[in-house]
């Protein structure tokens, strides 16, 4: 087997001193498509945030291409695309202007690439609409357009299907599967039943601390 790109090594996370889960081990070689599941409050969002370096881990380590992410933050971030709960789309800017700045945070984007990405998320024709006049689902689609612009290897998506209609969900699943096929890694959370054929599942419910051990 190919060497794992991303490794979670005995990872534990806590919030305000309360242990959420502990001892998560996981190796993701290129081509991984992994759904993180668990009940509300299990710690999925916390796991994803820790993985990207936004939150500190309580114990354990996260390695990217063999080295701890803390020692190579900038290199790691070049290969990372993170889409969270929140929608960083400025209401007063048009759809295209939003993608221009979001894109520029990672390697350069062209206007053509943006037009192409907007077609992919069914927002063609909305390039010049101000973003405050979009519906909930359309706003999230602007965010998802980044999937078609980014050259990142690792996609970390927190509930990417929120507010997306049925056709949109199917298309998004296909895109995620294709990224994995092409040697990328997709980690995502979702509570919805999915139509995709093959993906791994990491169930956080199994890593919860025993009743008395949340506080050490």
């Amino acid at each position: 087997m190919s060497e794992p790109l991303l490794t979670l090594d005995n990872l534990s996370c806590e919030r305000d001193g309360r242990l959420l889960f502990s001892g998560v081990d996981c190796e993701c070689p290129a081509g991984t498509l992994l759904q993180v599941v668990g009940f509300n409050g299990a710690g999925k969002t916390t796991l994803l945030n820790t993985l990207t370096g936004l939150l500190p881990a309580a114990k354990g380590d996260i390695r990217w291409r063999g080295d701890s992410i803390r020692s190579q933050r900038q290199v790691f971030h070049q290969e990372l695309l993170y889409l969270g709960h929140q929608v960083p789309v400025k209401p007063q800017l048009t759809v295209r202007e939003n993608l221009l700045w979001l894109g520029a945070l990672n390697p350069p984007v062209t206007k053509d690439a943006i037009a192409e990405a907007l077609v992919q998320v069914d927002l063609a024709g909305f390039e010049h609409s101000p973003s405050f006049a979009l519906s909930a689902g359309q706003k999230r689609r602007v965010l998802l357009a980044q999937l078609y612009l980014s050259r990142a290897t690792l996609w970390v998506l927190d509930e990417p299907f929120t507010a997306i209609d049925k056709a949109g969900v199917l298309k998004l699943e296909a895109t995620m599967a294709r990224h994995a096929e092409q040697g990328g890694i997709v980690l995502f959370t979702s509570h919805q039943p999915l139509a995709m054929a093959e993906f791994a599942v990491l169930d956080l419910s199994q890593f919860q601390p025993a009743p008395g051990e949340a506080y050490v």
Partner: protein
Amino acid sequence: MAWQWFHRLGSPRWFYEKSSRWLVWFAPLTLVLMVVGISWGLGFAPIDSKQGNSYRIIFIHMPAAALALAGYYIMAIAGAVGLIWKMKLPFMVMKSAAPIGAALTVLTLATGSLWGHPTWGTFWEWDARNIFMLVLLFLYAGIVVLAEVYPSRDAADKACAILALVGTINVPIIYKSVDWWYSLHQPASIKLTGGSSIHPSMLYPLLLCILAYYCFYTLALILYTRREILVRESRTKWVAELAQAKFSQSQNASGGAP
């Protein structure tokens, strides 16, 4: 090894248990120093020829002012240590130092105003050092408030440390600029000038008072930090066991009484 010792020092539990032992002799010592120093200054030092008895406020006022300033640097250093070595205890020390420093600043301001009434004829004068003290109060207040309002404790610690560190650059700048501004506007103040003019019979009690204040500051810092440790670690096992022990102790005591 030295490093091991250093990191043990960072452990709140270790500090809590050790400091229990220190307090046994340190607290009485501080008390004695305070009582002796202040009663010597207020009761037995000779009367000042120009100011009469009102000068005696200096025994409370001057050490408080000195410590209020020193306390800021102690707080900032604790914050820096916490940030650099990612330890919990220094942050707790930093957080405890803020209200103590603020209280000392208030004390300086209050005693200064009291003193100002007989000497300047007014409670408040826009004098360079008064302003500086007022600004120091705001600096402390900023840290106290920030520590209070931050939603998460870890974040609050680091944020306060950053603010305190930036403050250390700013404190001398503020001092200088206030001084500069003041010298442009007003003639020399009515203050007693320089420590050198002080007579030994007043100097010794003053020095004793300063020592007593330093001890008092350390004591207050230890007590506050212990409290902070208990609050933060309240849900850990060792604190639970401690509480359990205390509880059964008191239970035994009350049980044994009849």
